[in-house]
């Protein structure tokens, strides 16, 4: 909350529909960068940019929630938080003071497939930046007392989230319901129950097993001299050990063929928050450009079919959208919206009817061209800053993609035909009968109405798990 609001002192209390997800692609070409592979497997990526006196970095460690012990979900996430709570010869307080005293930032986090450490420092502090990053990754203190504090607070954070914006929770329940026991169904941050089961020794074990040089990608972009920073980073990471275990291989989850419903009871809710999804595509899927066009038209921008129906025409909701979650294997394709409790069934019916309309061939040539212009026109805004480039470089490396993923995207978008669009709708976008439907809302008011969508499982928002018990 702090950082976002500082220099922009105005309180933007109320905004229109949140920005549609920024898609890839355009006339932007990847600036030159250098890739260095150290003998221990660590990968370094360096891109000079001299527009502002900052250096940004993204370090990504393969693993993440995928490598959580199945009965201790949230372990990777807790470890990520613990990395910056004291490292090297600095205890947690000294570490925080050191970062703040130079106006730096270091943020750690976990995702389904990785742990990441990102941040930025003023250019003059590059030596300190490398020292702190090396300490965080190679010499975290992982102290018991810090661990316990963090674990307890993480449990409280989940409770606090359940008291705020419920639309942010539907994807967690959605993934759990869609992927079940598959690793992509895990709540990255764990649950109240799973976090309570994690011991200090589990986090130490996770660090030994799943953090090491052969798992790491370090991407840096900003105001530095490549030769100098390369030397600093190479010597800081050359002697790091490898991770104790090998990375598990994850298979593709089968798609859902028959619709089912998860109802999450929030007795005090005045709106229902709904989510529909099925298994989508992998990051490397060659149909990417066609799929981005199709999703933009269906639920990826303000005038999309979904937002037009649920917001613009009917006034049922403040917003509706759809998106792909692209991972090593097929992640989810999902749509989401919300409406007042009395209108729940009407809004879900409308969302599903809109999906049927997409399948019945509603996209025309003018819309196709509009979506191309839109995706292409917005793309450079995701490739503007050092911090964005560090993230992009790390992402390309993580998924085994090369710069053509960015540089050729504009041409690929331009080449998408109506036939391509229709084909990927058939092949990838689920029909309204092939979905997992998740609704957070006042169960007693909507339970009966929801039954028509398929077999219904009900849990409580206050339950300490996201996964419904079989």
């Amino acid at each position, binding site marked *: 909350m702090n950082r976002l609001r500082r220099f922009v002192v105005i309180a933007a209390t109320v905004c229109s529909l949140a920005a549609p997800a920024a898609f890839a692609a355009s006339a932007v070409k990847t600036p030159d960068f250098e890739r260095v592979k150290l003998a221990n497997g660590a990968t370094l990526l360096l891109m000079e940019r001299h527009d502002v*006196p*900052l250096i940004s970095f993204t370090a990504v460690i393969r693993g993440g929630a995928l490598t959580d012990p199945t009965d201790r979900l949230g372990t990777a996430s807790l470890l990520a938080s613990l990395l910056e709570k004291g490292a090297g010869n600095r205890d947690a307080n000294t570490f925080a003071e050191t970062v703040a005293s130079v106006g730096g930032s270091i943020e750690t986090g976990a995702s389904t497939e990785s742990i990441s450490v990102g941040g930025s420092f003023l250019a003059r502090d590059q030596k300190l930046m490398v020292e702190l990053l090396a300490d965080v990754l190679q010499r975290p203190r992982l102290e018991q007392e810090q661990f316990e504090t963090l674990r307890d607070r993480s449990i409280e954070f989940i409770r606090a989230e359940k008291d705020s914006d419920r639309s942010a929770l539907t994807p967690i329940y959605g993934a759990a319901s869609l992927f079940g026991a598959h690793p992509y169904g895990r709540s990255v941050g764990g649950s109240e129950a799973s976090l309570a089961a994690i011991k200090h020794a589990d986090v130490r074990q996770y660090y030994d097993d799943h953090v090491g040089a052969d798992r790491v990608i370090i991407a840096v972009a900003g105001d530095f001299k490549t030769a100098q920073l390369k030397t600093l980073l190479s010597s800081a990471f050359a002697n790091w050990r490898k991770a104790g275990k090998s990375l598990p291989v994850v298979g593709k989850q089968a798609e859902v063929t028959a619709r089912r419903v998860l109802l999450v009871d929030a007795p005090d809710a005045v709106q229902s928050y709904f989510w529909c999804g099925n298994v989508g595509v992998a990051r490397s899927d060659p149909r990417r450009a066609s799929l981005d066009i199709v999703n933009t038209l269906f639920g990826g921008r303000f005038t999309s079919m979904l937002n037009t129906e649920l917001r613009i025409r009917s006034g049922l909701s403040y917003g509706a959208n759809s998106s792909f979650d692209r991972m090593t294997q097929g992640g989810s394709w999902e749509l989401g919206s919300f409406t007042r409790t009395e209108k729940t069934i009407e809004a879900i019916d409308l969302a599903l009817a809109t999906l049927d309309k997409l399948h019945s061939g509603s996209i025309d040539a003018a819309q196709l061209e509009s979506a191309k212009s*839109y995706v292409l026109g917005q793309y450079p805004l995701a490739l503007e800053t050092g911090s964005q480039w560090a993230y992009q470089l790390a992402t390309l490396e993580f998924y085994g993609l090369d710069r053509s993923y960015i540089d050729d995207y504009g041409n690929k978008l331009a080449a998408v035909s109506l036939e391509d669009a229709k084909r990927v709708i058939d092949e990838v976008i689920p029909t309204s009968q092939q979905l997992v439907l998740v609704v957070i809302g006042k169960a007693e008011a909507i339970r009966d109405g929801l039954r028509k969508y398929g077999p219904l499982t009900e849990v409580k928002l206050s339950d300490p798990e996201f996964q419904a018990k079989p």
Partner: protein
Amino acid sequence: MIRSLLVGLALVAPVAFAQVPGGNEVRTATLANGMQIIVWPDHDIPNVALYNWVHVGSRNEAPGITGLAHFFEHMMFNGTSTRAPGEFDQILEANGARNNAFTSDDVTVYQDWFPRSALETVFELEADRLQNLSFDPKVVESERNVVHSERRLRVDDSHQGRLQEQVQATAFVAHPYAIPTIGWPSDILSWTIDDLKKFFSTYYAPNNCTLVLVGDVEPDKAIALARKYFEPIPKQEPPRPVKTEEPEQLGERRVAVNADAQTPLVQFAYHGISGKDPRRPALDLLTRVLTDGDASRLHRALVEEQKLAISADSYFTAGFDPGLVWFFLSLPADGDAKQAEAEFTRQVERLIEQGVTKDELARARSQALADFWRGLATIDGKAQALGTFEVLQGGHKKLFDEPRAYEAVTQQDIQKLAAELLRSTNRTVGVLKSPPPPNEAQTQSGGAK
């Protein structure tokens, strides 16, 4: 001047005084109808950010029409006498542009992000909706529901939102900053087309707008386009100024909200300063010492050491008139709101009595300066910053003095400001928690916990 420069160099290194790159290329113009234009070319990416700052917010509302400024933020996308509802977005998106808007207590800001090829189209559409907005009753009714849905999302189904609305309404007894920007539900449901028309003609005048463009544009061309599309729109009588001043608060105010909450919340709102107040950098540094990062005082004391809270945050509003300095505590599920409040107050009183250390000031200043640069790393951040300074903080040129203004703040400045603002008699305290169950006594004697 020279002295503060040297001190700055010693503490924060030369970068703090580096000229903001391209800052000397900012061009301004005033159209014949009074509309202000500011252009800052930046050719890093082939895109442009346009912000149209309309000088109207919930501060300009009254009972019966609360939420109307924000409602306009929605209506401005909904058709003109020359274009049907929806065409605005369709044309922009087909030209590669995205748009949005936000409303605050003070201003309503319309934003477009687009490839440079769409420049003239964007000017044409922005001028059209400023001049020719239409009010189709069907569209108004539909959009009323959209706004109500937004209110349920942000306020009614969010405990932080619900409490903050109550605290703000309690903190002001005279000034319209008491009004929630989203509007009270009964007003959202009942404002009329006539209310809309009157509001539009009063506030949506070119002489009440500041247009900011940053990105891949030539200033001469942008200003010429502004003359072509905006200059024909007639100037209007300036809106009536808001003259009400909030009287001095004479004692602490409290507000309680009962909700079925897993985690209790405590909020504090102190009367603060306006955007033009020269103490703004000092107030920013003061709040950073208290809540910015793991090394800050409130985080360390309440979250890390005493575990009374799971988070401690702050921000302050500084608009046309003196706003509020906010502090937000989220408590653990079994948290004691009284104890958390007492410790918060103790920390604030300690700061008033003893001031901040040299190290704390240096740290807060480094964080502020680094955030300054992070904010200027994008064309969007630059447009936001230029507009904020021009409209609310005494002129866009002040943006470029910002590092120097932060260097000039002393430990004494911060202590003095804390003593003046962070008094208990100057604050409103809000607490949100579950009401005690009716059979609490029995449960306790039964030893259920």
